[in-house]
């Protein structure tokens, strides 16, 4: 029973982090048809900036319980990296998708050394802050309140994003542009601006995710390439371009990872990708995806 509770708690937390990472990916794919391999590097940027800014703020005498606000703020600032990145990516919107994969792949290489230049080769983390809120007992297992906060934040962001896309005028413009770029342009939508904003919103979701999760796990240079593996698993299982798919896929992958960790740690990636293969063979477009 305690094992099941541990798996559930750890799995939901990991799923929350993965959702923040992949919701950005899904958004830019859904609207712009860009598959951003560098999403993991962007997430890492949020994590590193979160560590530095929060460490600095705490040294300046910030009351410790307020640290999540600083993390959130640095995640939001780091998200602005999307503005220049979108301008670079816009040079190849009309090329085959292999070119997009390649350009974002070269961004991974660039990011890895930029992060190393500013933060060095060793992992960085925020020690001793995630426990200031204490922990609660769930089914016989102690869960840090901070982890619960991250899960809640992911749910709030997910619900907010869905509401934004389905109920606001801007959201409707985004969906219309995703459906048909030319028609939207003819109706007076500034497609260039929409793309710029969507991509930046996507990177912001990833950097906020990285920043929020960093009190519980170190920021490292390997993150950039390692997270892509999880992110791909999530979008293949959930279905590419679907926000619901990102949420369901993230929870599934989070739970598989946590189960593997508690039962048989040797098979974490193996178990994830075995599920990915099964999903691809039975539901080629994922659980919530549309055929392309």
């Amino acid at each position, binding site marked *: 029973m305690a094992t099941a509770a541990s798996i559930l708690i750890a799995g939901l937390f990991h799923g929350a982090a993965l959702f923040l990472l992949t919701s950005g990916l899904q958004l830019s794919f859904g609207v712009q048809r860009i*598959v951003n*391999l560098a999403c993991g590097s962007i997430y890492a940027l949020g994590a590193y900036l979160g560590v530095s800014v929060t460490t600095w703020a705490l040294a300046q005498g910030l009351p410790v319980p307020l640290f999540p606000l600083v993390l959130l703020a640095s995640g939001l600032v780091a998200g602005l990296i999307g503005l220049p990145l979108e301008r*670079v990516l816009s*040079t*190849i919107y*009309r*090329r*085959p*998708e*292999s*070119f997009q*994969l*390649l*350009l974002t*792949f*070269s*961004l*991974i*290489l*660039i*990011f*890895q*050394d*930029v992060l*190393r*230049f500013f933060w060095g080769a060793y992992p960085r983390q925020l020690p001793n802050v995630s426990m200031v809120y204490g922990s609660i007992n769930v089914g016989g297992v102690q869960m840090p309140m901070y982890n619960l906060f991250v899960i809640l934040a992911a749910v709030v962001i997910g619900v907010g994003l869905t509401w934004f896309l389905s109920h606001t005028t801007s959201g409707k413009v985004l969906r219309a542009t995703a459906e048909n770029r030319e028609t939207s342009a003819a109706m007076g939508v500034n497609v260039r601006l929409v793309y710029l904003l969507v991509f930046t919103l996507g990177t912001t979701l990833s950097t906020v995710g990285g920043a929020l999760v960093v009190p519980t796990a170190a920021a490292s240079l390997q993150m950039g*390439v390692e997270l*892509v*593996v999880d992110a*791909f*698993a999530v*979008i*293949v299982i959930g279905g*590419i371009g679907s926000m619901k798919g990102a949420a369901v896929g993230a929870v599934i992958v989070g739970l598989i990872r946590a189960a593997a960790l508690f039962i048989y740690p*040797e*098979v*974490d*990636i*193996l178990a994830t*990708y*075995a599920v*990915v*293969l099964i999903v*691809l*063979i039975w539901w*080629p*477009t994922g659980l919530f995806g549309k055929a*392309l």
Partner: protein
Amino acid sequence: MKQAASALDMSVESDGTRSRSGITVKVMLFVAVVALAAAPHVTNIYYVSLGIPFMAYAVALLGFNLLFGYGGQLSFGHALFLAIGAYSSALAVRLTGNAAFELMLLFAVAAALAISIPLAWIASRFSGIFFGMLTLSFGMLFYSFLNKFYDLTGGDSGMNVPQPSLLGIDFSQVDKMGFLTGPFYYYCLALLIVSAWIMWRIVRSPYGLHLQASRDNEVKASYLGVKVRQVRAVAFVISAIYGSVGGAMLAISTGLADPELSYWQQSGHLVFMAILGGYQELIGPIAGALIFILLQDELQAATQYWRFFLGVVLALLVIGMPGGLLGTAKQILARWRR
């Protein structure tokens, strides 16, 4: 992919210029082969030692490009087959106690066939981004298998691959550098030339034309009687064999079968080399492999931030040279002739 196809149409010019450039290409190929054969006698021994990884990637890329350039299927897990070649070389020695390179190649080809046929059966149903993700999944599954099953594969420390004998001749007296820049260099060069010749025959055969037709227009091709799925599956298997042979060559140069060989970033490098050189040409990826190896080596020697500069150079190439180095050279040549 459709845009790639139309770019390819543009590169096919009228018959007159084609036969003229055909002669130019033959002369250039001859010069390239002579230069490669002469390299151990004229260049720095260090650069010659880069020749083996270059030729290994070149062989793997010939296969990769059958799938990608001619078949329109972008595999993002192709490094899987590099690892299969490397590990089956190590296993060949461990199981038979014989370190003949021919035996290693035999094991590599057999393993590639055994693994790629079921994968091809699954993967040939997909195209576009789904095919990319599926192949990425295959690669990552194999990567974690290699890493985690320590007893069988040596885990993250990999498996040793000893210096092999070639054509029954034992070179154990020759030191590693001498072996890699002498007999093994020429063996690999011969292997590369034979592989390229076979590939040249494949892409010009009726089968190759079926493959290109199914890339350009899947629906039209199947109306004309092309068995698209079957044709794609065969391309997958052939490219797996090429990748595996390249992996065996690579394993000799490092002396190690390493799980990193199958990591997705390695697959990314393969894709990069293909696009860098120009995937619309048979020998484009070979040129890409050479440039990539030299560029990476120079940057690594020059700065600890070599990834940054490699990334910048590659990003500029992707943005500015859609045809790759060879495609761009061809364009410039055509403009100059006019």
